C-alpha cells in the first residue's frame, strides 16, 4: 500500500460532501466577475473617463491600499482595479476554509481515524482535498476568463486576470494545507490561515502605497512588500498591460513548497495531533469561570484578542495613511475634485475617515457572526444539552452569548476608531483629540452590528440547522451591497436591505439619531424573535 492509496475515492468523497459549495464557488466567481465587468464598462465607457480614473487611482494612496496598483487605461485594467481585491479575498477565504474542512476538521471529529483505519494511505486525505480544491480554483479561473472575454475584454488580459485570481486561491490552498498541520483544532487552523490572508492584505496594501507612480501618471510600480504577499502577486501579473506571465509561477511554486511542507509535517506527527502539544491546565475552575458569563468570556477571549490585534494594526495604518492622503490632495487638485464628487461634497479627509470606519463596521460584522455562531456550534456538539440540563434558563444562556458578542463588538469598534484617530492624530499633532472624536464616531456604527447580531440570533432560533450558512450569507449580502452596490448601480431599495446603508457616515456628515434608533429597534425586535423561538423549540434540533 502506498502513501497515496485511496486518494481517488477520498477525492470523490470531498466532491460529494461539497457538491453544492463547489458549484456556488465555481459558478459564482465568474458570474460576479461578469456582472462587475459589465457595470464598470458602463461607468467608464471611453478613454477620457478611464484616463481620469487611472490618474486618480495611481495618485490616491487610499485607492492603492484598497484596490491595488492600477496598470494603465485599458478597460480591463479598470475592471481589475475595481474587482481584483474583492474576488481575490473571496477566493482566498473559500480555499482556506475548504482545505481545513477536509483535513483538520476530519481529524478533530474523528472521521479521519475511521478512514485511516481503512485502506487509505497516509497522504491520501490531504492529497484528495488539495486535488479537488486546486481543481475548483482552476475551473473557476477558466470560467472567469470566459466570462471576462464574454464581457468584451481582450483575450490575453482576461486569461491573465482570471489566472491571477485562481493563483491567489491556489496560494492560500497551500498555506491552509500547512496551517491544518500546525493547529489541533479546525478553528485554530482557519484562524491561522485567515490571519495569513489578513497579513497578505496589509503587506500588499503597504507595498502598493509605498510604490512609485509612473511618469505618465496612469500606472503604479509596487514596492517590495507587495512581492511577499500572495494577494499582491495577482496585481504584478499586470493583466491588460503587457502581461507578465512568469509571475503566475509564484503561486504554483508556493503550492509545491506548501504541499511538500505539509507532507513533511504530516509524516512527523500523530493523527489528530498538532505541532503545538496541548498543555495541562488548572485542576479546578476559577470562580470567575463558573457562570454563563464567565464561560462566554473564556470562550471568546482568544477570538477577541486576535481581532483586537488585527483591528489595531489596521486602524493605525489607515490613520497614518489619512495624512498622506491630505498631502496627495494638496498636490493634485484634479484628483481632489474627483474624490470630492465621490465623497458627496464633504471634507475629503473626513470622507476618507468615514469610509474607513464603515469598512471596519462591515468587517466587525464577521466578528459578531463568528462569536454568535458559537451557540450553534455548542448545540451541534452536544455541549448545549449538558449546559441546559443545569439550572440555567435558555433566555439567560442565549442572552449571555448575545451580550458577550455585543460587548466584544463595542470594544473592537472603539479600538478601531481610537487607533485610526491615534494614527491620524500622531501625524497631525492631535492624537488625543482625534482618538476621542473617531472613537465616538466608530461607536455610532454599533446599531448596524446589533442588527447583524439580531439576524444571527433570529436565524438560530428559527432555523437552527441552517444557522451557519444563512448567517454568513446575510453578512455577505450586506458586504456586497456596501462594496459593490454602487458599482453595480443597484436600486436604493436593494441597498436599504443592509443595515450599514443607514448608518450616518460620521465624521463626513453630522450624526443623526433617527436612523440609529430605528436600527436599534430593528435589532431588538430580531433579538426578541430569536430568543422567543429558541425558548420554544427542541434542543438539540
Amino acid at each position: 500500500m502506498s502513501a497515496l492509496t485511496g486518494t481517488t475515492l477520498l477525492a470523490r468523497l470531498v466532491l460529494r460532501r461539497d457538491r453544492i459549495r463547489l458549484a456556488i464557488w465555481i459558478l459564482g466567481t465568474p458570474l460576479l466577475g461578469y456582472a462587475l465587468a459589465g457595470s464598470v464598462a458602463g461607468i467608464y465607457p471611453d478613454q477620457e473617463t478611464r484616463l481620469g480614473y487611472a490618474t486618480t487611482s495611481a495618485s490616491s494612496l487610499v485607492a492603492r491600499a484598497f484596490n491595488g496598483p492600477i496598470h494603465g487605461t485599458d478597460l480591463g485594467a479598470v475592471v481589475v482595479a475595481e474587482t481584483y481585491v474583492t474576488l481575490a479575498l473571496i477566493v482566498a477565504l473559500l480555499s482556506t476554509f475548504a482545505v481545513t474542512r477536509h483535513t483538520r476538521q476530519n481529524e478533530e471529529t474523528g472521521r479521519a481515524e475511521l478512514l485511516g483505519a481503512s485502506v487509505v494511505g497516509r497522504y491520501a486525505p490531504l492529497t484528495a482535498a488539495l486535488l479537488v480544491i486546486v481543481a475548483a480554483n482552476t475551473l473557476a479561473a477558466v470560467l472567469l476568463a470566459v466570462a471576462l472575454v464574454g464581457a468584451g475584454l481582450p483575450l490575453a488580459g482576461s486569461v491573465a486576470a482570471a489566472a491571477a485570481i485562481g493563483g491567489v486561491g491556489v496560494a492560500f490552498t497551500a498555506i491552509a494545507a500547512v496551517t491544518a498541520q500546525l493547529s489541533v483544532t479546525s478553528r485554530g487552523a482557519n484562524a491561522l490561515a485567515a490571519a495569513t490572508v489578513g497579513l497578505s492584505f496589509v503587506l500588499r496594501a503597504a507595498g502598493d502605497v509605498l510604490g512609485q507612480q509612473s511618469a505618465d501618471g496612469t500606472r503604479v510600480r509596487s514596492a517590495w512588500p507587495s512581492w511577499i504577499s500572495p494577494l499582491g502577486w495577482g496585481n504584478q501579473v499586470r493583466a491588460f498591460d503587457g502581461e507578465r506571465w512568469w509571475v503566475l509561477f509564484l503561486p504554483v511554486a508556493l503550492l509545491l513548497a506548501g504541499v511538500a511542507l505539509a507532507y513533511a509535517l504530516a509524516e512527523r506527527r500523530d493523527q489528530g495531533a498538532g505541532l503545538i502539544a496541548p498543555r495541562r491546565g488548572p485542576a479546578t475552575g476559577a470562580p470567575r469561570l463558573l457562570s454563563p458569563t464567565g464561560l462566554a468570556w473564556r470562550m471568546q477571549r482568544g477570538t477577541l484578542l486576535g481581532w483586537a490585534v488585527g483591528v489595531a494594526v489596521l486602524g493605525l495604518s489607515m490613520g497614518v495613511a489619512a495624512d498622506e492622503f491630505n498631502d496627495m490632495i494638496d498636490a493634485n487638485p484634479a484628483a481632489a475634485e474627483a474624490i470630492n464628487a465621490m465623497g458627496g461634497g464633504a471634507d475629503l479627509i473626513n470622507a476618507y475617515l468615514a469610509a474607513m470606519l464603515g469598512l471596519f463596521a462591515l468587517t466587525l460584522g464577521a466578528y459578531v457572526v463568528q462569536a454568535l455562531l458559537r451557540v450553534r456550534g455548542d448545540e451541534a456538539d452536544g455541549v448545549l444539552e449538558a449546559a441546559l440540563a443545569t439550572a440555567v434558563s435558555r433566555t439567560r444562556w442565549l442572552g449571555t452569548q448575545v451580550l458577550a458578542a455585543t460587548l466584544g463588538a463595542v470594544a473592537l469598534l472603539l479600538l478601531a476608531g481610537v487607533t485610526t484617530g491615534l494614527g491620524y492624530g500622531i501625524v497631525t499633532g492631535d492624537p488625543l483629540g482625534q482618538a476621542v472624536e473617531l472613537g465616538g464616531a466608530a461607536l455610532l456604527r454599533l446599531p448596524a452590528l446589533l442588527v447583524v447580531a439580531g439576524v444571527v440570533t433570529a436565524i438560530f432560533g428559527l432555523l437552527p440547522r441552517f444557522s451557519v450558512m444563512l448567517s454568513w450569507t446575510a453578512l455577505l449580502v450586506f458586504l456586497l451591497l456596501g462594496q459593490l452596490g454602487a458599482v453595480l448601480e443597484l436600486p436604493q431599495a436593494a441597498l436599504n436591505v443592509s443595515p450599514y446603508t443607514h448608518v450616518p457616515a460620521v465624521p463626513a456628515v453630522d450624526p443623526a439619531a433617527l436612523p440609529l434608533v430605528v436600527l436599534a429597534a430593528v435589532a431588538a425586535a430580531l433579538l426578541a424573535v430569536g430568543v422567543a423561538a429558541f425558548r420554544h423549540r427542541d434542543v438539540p434540533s
Partner: protein
Amino acid sequence: MPVISIGNLVKTFGAIRALDGLDLHVEQGEVHGFLGPNGSGKSTTIRILLGLLRRDSGDAQVLGADPWRDAVRLHRRLAYVPGDVSLWPNLTGGEAIDLLGQLRGGLDRRRRDELLDRFDLDPTRRCRTYSKGNRQKVAIVAAFSSPVELYVLDEPTSGLDPLMEAVFQDEVRRVKQAGATVLLSSHVLAEVEALCDRVSIIREGRTVESGTLAELRHLTRTAVTVETARPVTGLDALPGVHDVHEVDGRTHLEVEPAHLDELLGQLIRFGVRALTSTPPTLEQLFLRHYGDDSAAAATGVPAVAASGAAAAAAADAGAQADVPQGGAR
C-alpha cells in the same frame, strides 16, 4: 407521589413517531432501570424529562413539576449524565466539572475530590484530549458531586472499564441510601440486575413491560429438562407448557411459572430420575421484549435486527435461542 410520572407521552420528529404513548412511573427512592433497544426512544424520553424537547401530547411530571415550564427550577434538584458526553474542548476536566456543578447550583467539593480519586481521573487535562471513557467520567463525577434528589443517567457507563463500573455502582447505591431517586438507562444487564429495584422496558416508543425483576421473570417461561424412567406422554395437552422435545432420552420443555405445579404432577407419574429447572436469564427476558416475537417465531430473527449493533447482537442471541425449539420439531 412518584418522582417521575409519564402518561401516554407522544413525540414526533417529522414523520417519525419517536414516542408513541409511552408510560413511565418512578417512585421516590428507587433505582429504576430504563431499558429498550437502540432507537426505541429512551434518550428522547429523557430529554423530555429534562425540558430539552417539547412533548407533542401526553403528561409528564418530574418531582411534581412540569419539565418544560419549570425546567430551571427542576434542574437545581436533578443531575444528568448524557450517553454521549461532549465537553468544552479547551476547558480542563476539573474546570468542566466545577462549571457544570456551579451551573446546577453548587457542588460538594469534598465529594468531588473523592470521586476524582476513586474514578482515577486527571482533572488537569483538556477535555479535547480525553477518551470517551474519561469524558464519561467527567459527567459522572460532576453529577454525583451534586447532592440532588434525582439522578437521570442515560447509558452512563458506556466506555467505562469493569473497575470503574464497580465504582459507579457504589456511587448509585450511596445516593440511593441517601434517599435519592435514580433513573438508569442502560444496556449493561448485569448493572441493571445489580442496581435496579424496578425496570421499565420500552420498544418503538411504547412501554411494553414494567415491574420488579422478579415480576418480570414471573412472566417468562422457565426452561425444564427432565430424565424419566418411562417415556413421558401427555405433556402437550397441559396448559402453559411449550416447545416439548426429546434429545438423547431427555425431555426439554418450557413452562409458564403459573403452571409449574401441574407439570410436576404429570412428570412424577413417569419416574423422574433427574430434573433441572432454569429460570429465565435476564438476557432471555430482554430478548423476548426487545425482539419482535411474531417475526422472531417466523424467521428466527427479531425484526429490530437492522436498527443497530446491540440489536444485531440481540438478533444473534435470539436466533441461537430459537434454534433448539424450531429445529427439533
